[in-house]
């Protein structure tokens, strides 16, 4: 499963079309779209909205689902570097929140056909290098020293996502939409830029996390044991220890049948001492 967060609809449009995701009915405030197994969420502008959208979405999932979910934020960003052409795509390996000064480091573990990476600074207002543009915050070259890309959601996304999802599952990618000239981008331009990266990135987005492997022990062995023990009263600690012993057996004997005690023995358990003996004997048989 994968989830993709955008700030605005124009960023998401081509992705919604390609994935054929349909509105997902839920009790929250944010727009969530879903196809069979992938989600697209639109948060609205700003890091607070983004953080709330991540949190709302996370609450629609179980912890197990969250652990296996790839979770991305894609969108547009302004570039402080005139030499970077518009439309270039970058993975983000460092995000600074301008207001709090906090830094976040998305781990780039997976390979991508997009090779470029850079840093991102998230501001609460649109930023320009020009002096005094209405509704923009003007920053000088010195204030932007070392900053590569600028957006309004990245830090909110990453901080919230890292509360709910494993760090390795989270990625942020940005398309350069302007050079901080102090003009708002037109929706059509945004749509076009996002569409350009769609085809190569879509496959990466829907492919499962490489480390999301099924544990055959959980799907094959443990359910058998759980069924076997359901009518005897093992404590949680006993269950925990038993699980480790069964796993030990399976790792040592990948092709053997799992030794289960005779059902008759199980039915004859009268006292706690019987149970303890039964349990110890079983575990011993697993540690051969």
């Amino acid at each position, binding site marked *: 499963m994968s989830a993709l967060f955008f700030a605005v609809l124009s960023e998401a449009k081509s992705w919604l079309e390609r994935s054929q995701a349909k509105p997902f009915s839920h009790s929250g405030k944010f727009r969530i779209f879903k196809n069979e197994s992938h989600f697209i969420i639109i948060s609205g502008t700003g890091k607070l909205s983004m953080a709330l959208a991540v949190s709302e979405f996370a609450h629609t999932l179980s912890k197990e689902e969250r652990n296996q979910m790839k979770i991305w934020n894609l969108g547009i960003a302004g570039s402080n570097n005139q030499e970077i052409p518009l439309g270039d795509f970058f993975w983000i*390996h460092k995000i600074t929140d301008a207001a709090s000064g906090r830094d976040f480091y998305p*781990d780039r573990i997976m390979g991508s056909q997009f090779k470029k990476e850079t840093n991102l600074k998230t501001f609460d207002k649109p930023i320009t290098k020009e002096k005094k543009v209405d509704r923009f915050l003007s920053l000088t070259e010195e204030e932007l020293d070392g900053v590569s890309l600028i957006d309004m959601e990245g830090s909110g996304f990453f901080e919230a996502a890292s509360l709910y999802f494993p760090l*390795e599952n989270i990625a942020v990618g940005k398309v350069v939409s302007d050079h901080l000239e102090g003009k708002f981008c037109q929706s059509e331009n945004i749509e076009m830029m996002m569409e350009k990266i769609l085809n190569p990135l879509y496959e990466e987005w829907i492919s499962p996390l490489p480390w999301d492997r099924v544990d055959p022990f959980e799907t094959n062995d443990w359910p058998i044991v759980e069924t076997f023990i359901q009518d005897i009263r093992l404590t949680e600690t006993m269950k925990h220890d038993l699980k480790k012993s069964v796993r030990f057996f399976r790792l040592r004997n990948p092709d053997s049948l799992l030794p289960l005690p005779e059902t008759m023995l199980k039915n004859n358990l009268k006292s706690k001492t019987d149970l303890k003996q039964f349990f110890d004997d079983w575990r011993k048989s697993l540690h051969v």
Partner: protein
Amino acid sequence: MFKTFSHIYIEENIKDHFRTKEILARFPNSIPILIRHYKDSFNRNSQNFRIQKESPKLILAEKKENFLYPGSDFSPNFSHPHFYYNTLALNCIYDCEYCYLQGMFPSANLVLFVNWEDFFSATEEFIEKNKSLYLALSYDTDLLALESFFPATKEWLKFAELHPNLSLEIRTKSTNYGQIAKMKPNPNVILAWTVSPQAIIEKVEHGTPSLQARLKSINQAISDGWKVRICIDPILRVPDWNTHYQSLADILGKELKMDGLTDISFGGFRMNIDFLKRITEVRKDSSILFHAFEKKDKIVSYSKLETEEILELMSTSLNKNFSPSQIKVSYF
């Protein structure tokens, strides 16, 4: 051997340090990322050690305090009154299934501290005050394994030459002896190699050199006049463990040059219970970690009976080849 590092995180305050530059020059294709403090990256919550180990990153940092730590109860102190260790690096390029670092550190990324001079000064101060120091140099890492891009072992050997009251133990599984082979042997330095039966190396000590390759390095070091310690530690009760360890003892007896051998120590698997718990949460494919261990004082180890078996087997097989005074039991 290990792959290169895709990313190198660099603390801002040491970005112009000459050692940082030297290390970066070794990895021209890695992406550098400036960070404020290594802990901002290394100590983050919800990192998965196993997943990170698939693509470990390098972190270059400055150590600001704690240049010496008192030795832990898990390791033999070889009866020295001032047994300490330092941490010039955190984590290891190898991936042994039994490694406690997996349970101790939140991240699998490799931290290298570049301000060795501060470590040297703190060590000098300690020696001045306490008159002697036995320092384990390769703790929480395999330092010699990093020598090609982090030549700290060489520098410490130079430092030890100037400080006769300092004894060093440098423990490794690497075959990087060649990197320090030109140094003059120092009687206050023990080069310690951890060895295991080849079958265990292949199955459990991922990425480490073969037994034969380690033996070659060991013999070279002995011939060159170094004091060498052999550590068979941890002994693991894998299937047919007794045959494996018996034949290891025989191989060592046959192939090691005995004269320069300081001692040969062995110890059974043991680990802090919380570390093991953390490791088994993410490493579920290693049977050695799911053994029915005994717990005592927050440490798990083999049962008394199993331990006695190991002691008996190792004493008998080592006694065939080594003098009793050379054989040391490091921990049971």
